[in-house]
């Protein structure tokens, strides 16, 4: 019985130490309409909301090894469903501390879309249509 109480106490102490030495913070980085200019392009397919991330570690929270790469995070987001670019993009960074190391993760969220470049003829037609709509 005494042994059980002792193990319970040690386990609780370990859990307290682990919890007290771990921490997490999320901070916003940016919000943007798209990752690439879409004013001259048409969205042909929308694959829905996707998420991608990339992580880098740092020693003692002081020296970072590598860097959280936003390019890799965007490619990671587009990898599963496909698509050329992201629209309605939000980006944030999550930092977690565990004892002597910390991880820095950049997360990119957005809608994956396939874009088709509009031909000059289509653009010309659209411009011609505008005055008629006003009437």
């Amino acid at each position, binding site marked *: 019985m005494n042994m059980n109480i002792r193990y319970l106490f040690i386990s609780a102490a370990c859990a307290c130490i682990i919890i007290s030495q771990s921490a997490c913070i999320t901070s916003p980085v940016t919000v943007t309409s798209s*990752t690439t*200019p879409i004013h001259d392009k048409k969205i042909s397919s929308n694959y829905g909301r996707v998420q991608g991330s990339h992580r880098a570690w740092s020693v003692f929270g002081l020296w970072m090894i590598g860097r959280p790469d936003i390019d890799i995070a965007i490619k990671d987001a587009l990898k599963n469903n496909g698509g050329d670019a992201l629209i309605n993009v939000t*980006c944030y960074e999550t930092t977690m501390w565990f004892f002597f190391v910390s991880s*820095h993760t950049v997360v990119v969220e957005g809608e994956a879309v396939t874009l088709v470049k509009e031909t000059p003829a289509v653009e010309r037609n659209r411009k011609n249509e505008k005055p008629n709509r006003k009437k």
Partner: protein
Amino acid sequence: MIFCIMISILFSGCLHFNTRVTGIEPQAKIVDNKNYTVLGEAEGQSSSFNLLWIIPVTPRLDYNKAVNQAVESKNGDNLIDVRTWKERQVWLLGLVEILYVRGKVIRYER
């Protein structure tokens, strides 16, 4: 304390080093012309140094300077698919900050 200082000096003076993503933008400047050619990926940077971490010695980080450096490296007109990140190095002597800008350089068709 002295031991800690000696260890710090032995560690080449770098006390802290980290990189943070600062943004994603579709383009660096307004795209004037819809007809353009993509010349390729390019990277530009701008840096600043603060003596003893607080006294600015060089001009501040300049986003435009970094963008122009990237654009000029390919003789283009603008930068699209822009990603920016900032590197911060804390040394015994001071603070170094470097702003990186990477994107695709475009040239307008005239």
